[in-house]
């Protein structure tokens, strides 16, 4: 919004330290505020509703995808695993869950009320899920490109998309590392990168200078703004000696991207799940995480409803989320407004929140893998001595 | 070894028959000029006493003959003009307010935010930018005796500067070593009044340094008394008693450093004054206090005749077992050695 005002008064919004949106977004918002001067609030509500509709579609498609996948893998499934097989009935109202989780999610409501432009970013990610499941490669890649163009981190989503479209193209795939497969990966990645470059190029043409690159992506990567937020970056970097800063920024940013590789290898058969896990990781390791990212991951959470029964820490994780949601604002209030608590109080909550997200991710990962294991080997595992075996996460 | 060569180099030095006591005393110190670096490292109104400390020492050394041009005075805050000062433009070191140590002729070389660790080390080592005026430089040479006085808030191994940075004892020791290598001093008397002050000189390793500190490691140095009219502590204990001693020192005085070290016993200071003499070549008992605190030229008229012999050549040869030309060569080499450092001017 400030950016619109700045550009209206003929100042390049990128020369200051206030505005970090991308040029296309700026144009779009500018257009929106001009076209409907009184209806900007409704724009956000509209985007929110659109997200809900997209989520419902995702739900339907995903249910079909799950059943399809189950049919494909039927040979590998153990006969004893009958109970955990997904029935049609149990997934057919998945779209309702998704929509409810989005619309009545306190986080997404807060984001919408706060009129954060992150809703557009979230929408782009929802679209990429949607078109992924529809199998529309080009549009999917374009959605990812949009999201990446907005906030850089969704770049990692290219990996699951590449995996997915390879499996779509060769349903009878043998080896995910064959030259054919690599070829397909490269093709997808190049297409994705091309569309991102295209967007950046358009912005360059519109803007006429490369200044925006620094104040958008440079801002994300070098973390100059240490205003307290949900993440852990701000605290570390306010405490840190200036000369170590570059090193630690590299370490922190690598975190956001490094997990793509091992996870892609392990979850190569489950690209959609991989994509979700990457979304969660993104919101943990982002340099400026916000409620919007939490909204994103909680809205998509019901997709994995069938694995919930395998989650072991749901009580702990849920409580952590609840506590953080309540204590976070209170401590922030005490620190900033009442002045009686200090930054450490708030940071401890931000840290707890991040660990809750980590727990959620690991727990979900565990639950998913555990379910796969059970599908292969059947539910009841008996050891030789007749006791029920317990699967441990090593 | 270096010391021996230095001795041999200096042309004016004459070795004297050790059996001749007045002459020994006359040449005991071997210095030709005196410098003082006086540092108050802390700011804020409630640290009034540190400013008073350093200004009192400044006043004493000036009274004993070190000119302003040879004193580098670093004061981190301007107490005299603090709005909280009920008596503007004055600083007193005593509740009786008989001496305004912020008199008419105080020349502060580094003030306010100029008092930083960097500037302090640069002053000591002479690595100042070329544009620095002479009055802000320590233009000492290998014949200079330097008094370094520091006060502020310290801890084990550091002294805080300005609430934002600190100088560590290792840094300080290295700075002195650099000074020694660059032949910027002859002898240093290091005096520090801060908490755990002893730790600041424990890491010294350069020769000819005599050091005294107001407290041992683990002890606090305490303030002396309050001036209820100003509403602050006006001076620290150690400095207070040291000043009391210095007030009785006249330019021709024969008081020794050893006497000075006995100032402020535990019952007065409530902290243990600690001294380090192992780096110092002379006997503190025979070192007179004005070697550091004053600029006293020993010009004495004697009635008896003294036999002075030019023993330079003899001395160096006896040490190095060398012929005359070799000595010449060494001196040339050493001169070029000196030139490779960027000496001021």
């Amino acid at each position, binding site marked *: 919004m400030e950016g619109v005002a700045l550009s209206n008064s003929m100042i390049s919004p990128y020369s200051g330290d206030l505005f970090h949106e991308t040029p296309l977004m700026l144009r779009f918002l500018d257009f929106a505020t001009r076209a409907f001067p009184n209806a900007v609030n409704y724009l956000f509500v509209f985007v929110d509703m659109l997200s809900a509709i997209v989520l419902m579609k995702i739900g339907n498609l995903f249910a079909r995808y799950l059943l399809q996948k189950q049919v494909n893998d039927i040979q590998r499934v153990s006969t004893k695993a009958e109970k955990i097989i997904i029935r049609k009935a149990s997934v057919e109202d998945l779209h309702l869950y998704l929509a*409810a*989780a989005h619309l*009545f999610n306190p986080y997404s409501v807060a984001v919408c009320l706060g009129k954060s432009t992150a809703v557009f970013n979230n929408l782009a990610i929802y679209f990429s899920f949607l078109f992924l499941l529809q199998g529309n490669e080009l549009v999917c890649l374009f959605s990812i490109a949009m999201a990446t163009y907005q906030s850089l981190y969704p770049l990692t989503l290219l990996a699951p998309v590449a995996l997915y479209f390879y499996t779509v193209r060769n349903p009878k795939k043998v080896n995910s590392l064959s030259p054919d497969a690599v070829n397909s990966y490269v093709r997808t990645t190049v297409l994705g990168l091309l569309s991102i470059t295209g967007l950046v190029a358009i912005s360059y043409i519109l803007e006429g200078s490369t200044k925006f690159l620094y104040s958008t992506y440079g801002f994300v990567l070098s973390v100059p703004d240490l205003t307290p937020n949900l993440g852990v970056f701000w605290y570390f970097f306010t405490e840190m000696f200036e000369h170590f800063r570059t090193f630690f920024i590299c370490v922190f940013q690598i975190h956001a991207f490094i997990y793509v590789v091992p996870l892609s290898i392990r979850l190569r058969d489950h690209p959609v799940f991989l994509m979700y896990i990457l979304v969660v990781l993104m919101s943990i390791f982002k340099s400026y995480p916000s409620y919007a990212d939490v909204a994103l991951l909680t809205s998509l959470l019901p997709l994995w409803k069938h694995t919930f029964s395998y989650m072991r820490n749901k*009580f702990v994780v849920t409580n952590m989320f609840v506590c953080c949601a309540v204590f976070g604002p209170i401590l922030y209030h005490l620190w900033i407004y009442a002045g009686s608590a200090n930054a450490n109080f708030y940071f401890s909550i931000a840290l707890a929140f991040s660990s809750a997200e980590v727990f959620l991710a690991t727990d979900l990962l565990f639950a998913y893998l555990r379910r796969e294991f059970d599908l292969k080997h059947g539910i009841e595992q008996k050891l030789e001595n007749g006791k029920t075996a317990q699967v441990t996460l090593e | 070894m270096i010391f021996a060569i230095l001795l041999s180099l200096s042309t004016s030095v004459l070795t004297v028959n050790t059996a001749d006591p007045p002459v020994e005393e006359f040449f005991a110190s071997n210095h030709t000029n005196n410098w003082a670096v006086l540092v108050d490292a802390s700011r804020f109104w409630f640290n009034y006493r540190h400013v008073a400390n350093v200004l009192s020492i400044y006043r004493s050394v000036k009274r004993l003959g070190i000119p302003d041009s040879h004193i580098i005075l670093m004061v981190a805050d301007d107490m005299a*003009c603090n709005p909280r000062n009920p008596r503007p433009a004055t600083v007193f070191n005593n509740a009786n307010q008989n001496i305004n140590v912020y008199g008419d002729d105080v020349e502060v070389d580094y003030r306010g935010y100029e008092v930083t660790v960097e500037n302090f080390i640069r002053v000591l080592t002479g690595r100042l930018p070329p544009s620095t005026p002479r009055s802000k430089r320590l233009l000492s040479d290998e014949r200079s005796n330097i008094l370094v006085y520091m006060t502020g808030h310290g801890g084990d191994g550091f002294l805080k500067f300005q609430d934002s940075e600190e100088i560590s004892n290792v840094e300080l020791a290295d700075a002195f070593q650099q000074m020694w290598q660059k032949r910027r001093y002859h002898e240093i008397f290091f005096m520090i009044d801060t908490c755990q002050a002893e730790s600041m000189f424990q890491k010294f390793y350069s020769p000819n340094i005599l050091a005294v500190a107001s407290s041992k490691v683990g002890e606090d140095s305490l303030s002396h008394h309050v001036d209820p009219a100003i509403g602050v502590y006006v001076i620290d204990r150690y400095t207070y008693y040291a000043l009391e001693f210095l007030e009785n020192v006249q330019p021709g005085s024969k008081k020794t450093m050893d006497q000075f070290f006995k100032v402020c016993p535990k019952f007065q200071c409530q902290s243990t004054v600690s001294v380090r003499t192992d780096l110092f070549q002379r006997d503190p008992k025979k070192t007179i206090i004005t070697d550091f605190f004053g600029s006293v030229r020993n010009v004495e008229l004697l009635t008896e005749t003294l036999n002075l012999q030019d023993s330079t050549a003899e001395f160096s040869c006896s040490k190095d077992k060398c012929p005359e030309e070799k000595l010449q060569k060494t001196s040339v080499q050493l001169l070029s050695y000196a030139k490779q450092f960027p000496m001021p001017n």
Partner: protein
Amino acid sequence: MGLLSNPKQRQKIIDAVSKYNNKLCVLCYVVGVGWFLALASPYLNAQTYISENALLPGVVGNEFHFADFEVDAVLKELEGELQKDKGKLPRDWLYRQFRMIGLDTYMQNYSIKYPLHITRGQTVPGQNVYAILRARRTASTEAIVMSTPFRPKSSDLTKTTGSIVLMLGLARHFRKQPYWSKDIIFLVTDHEQIGMQAWLNGYHLLEADYIKPGELPGRSGPIQAAINLELPIGFLKSFDLKIQGLNGQLPNLDLFNLAVRLCKKEGADVTLHQQINVNGNEAFTLDGFQHTLKTMLKMMWSQAMGLPTGNHGMFHQYHIEALTIQGIHKKKSGNIQLDIAGRIVEGIFRSLNNLLERFHQSFFFYILPATNRYVSIGMYMPPFGLLCAPGLIKAIALWVGAGKETNKKEVKGDKEEKTESGKEEITSETYDQDREKKEEKTDHQEAEEEINSEEEDEEETFHPGSGILSTVPLLFSSTLMGLLCSMGPDLLASMSGSFRMNIEDGIFYGFLALFTASLIFPRMVRRKTSKGKKLQFDWQLLKCIGLIFQSLVLFSLALMNISLAFFLGVVIIPITVIVHPTSNRLLLWFQKLLLLLVSPAVLVYLTAVVGTLQEEKFTHLTTLLSKSWSNLSRGLLLTLVDRDFFGSWMFSVFSFSVLPNWLIFWGIAFCEPT
């Protein structure tokens, strides 16, 4: 992580918790309460000290005396002015006095519009007089405030004529001093806290709905600290320091210590809630402990009320440290003259003058058992945690128990039913959350509680099973009650006019009706559920949710107002942990009785009883009860007015968290045992 991923160790802990949970709960509760009360003992608390170097308390010699100021003459003049116009502030006289001293003197006009149609839309005017002493040698970047409320002759509170005279004397004295580095604002306010709020709003350029502050003609820098004086004229016995501000906020402990230190320096007795300190050694005896415990509980009680004990209380919300010095008047035994008070204030101001930055050292969260001892947040949180632990332990035990049962069910149950229930669940949830969304829009201030309860609902989506659906109506209706309760007053007030009822009574009886309605709500819910006549729901799950919600509320409160959290916790926790449905009729009635005892309405009434008991001594129980009954209705109205005037959140806390939470447990008591 080891704990979370190693199933064997986990199982052990879970087993231990579910096996010993009852004993653990009792142990935690008893130890928690005992420990907390024991904090009053000098063995467990700490000596106060000043942690801000810059203050240099008491170092300066205090010079103030009334020598060149004819106290009696000024006093006589003031008395004369007061006689002239009863019930009004002699503003013009004060204005002239400050002008004569040579200060920048201004007046602020403001108007008060009472909420709830109390004054039928009319506004009440008010005026504050203030004078600014500009620091001579600095820019006006910071300021300290000396304030005194003006009380007309008719007021039954401590007279403040002494402090007005003293303020004039001090202003005259301060004016001559060259050493000020901060501006000093002398402020005389009208209408007690309302005037103060109006002045502060005006100073910080804030607009409020009910108090319309007029523009301030003169202003200084950010206010660093404030001292409020309430001194009567004549000889004083001691000084009482009042610290509790709005919503139980406290000033920085350094400021309090400073005031105590200076009073001691001038040889004046200083008290906290009129409780003098016990002597050094006596503190370690049992008698001493009882005394300090009494002081501590008094202090906590007053903090728990969330009402400011003086005008200083308004400063806290603007991040300004402030306290009130009240002079305790005794006709014969007093030996403190006004100029001693003057010297104390002078000393405090000179120390504040030395401040370099805002108070930030020392503590903001503390409890005081004596003026020279303190209990910091680090000391009181562990016992408080223990006190709250039973709720959490029980919740975990219930969860584990419920988990086991559902596991069993899942193995047996068939799929069809499961999906059906899932469907229903989601629709009802949609409804539930839809309603909450509306709530959020209506009342943004309560967003926290909203998120909270929505989170509760979200929790349900996380796990499958049949139990959740059944708890929803109960959760829904209890939150609805909370909403009604918070909206109620405005509705009732607008209605009571047409009934020709007193507004106070209207609101009071309205609340009574609301509460009675909420008592029978389990029956209403029962009627809604078509299956049979009995309430059927997974009470274990409901209790688990309720307990977690309760712990969350208590801990959140503990961060803002430890005393309130403590008193609430002590009363509520044992009963809520015990409550469970039973078929034993006697036990059931006993439970219901207990629950009624800790219901918000009864709690509020008990508070009123204790409040009246503190004010006066009653010989007869019935008079006490009836007096507190009338106090209750007045107190209720005042709490509501406070909410609108000052932003006190006491009422909101009760209506949005305490009441719904209690209703959950009330519902459990009506539940059919499984």
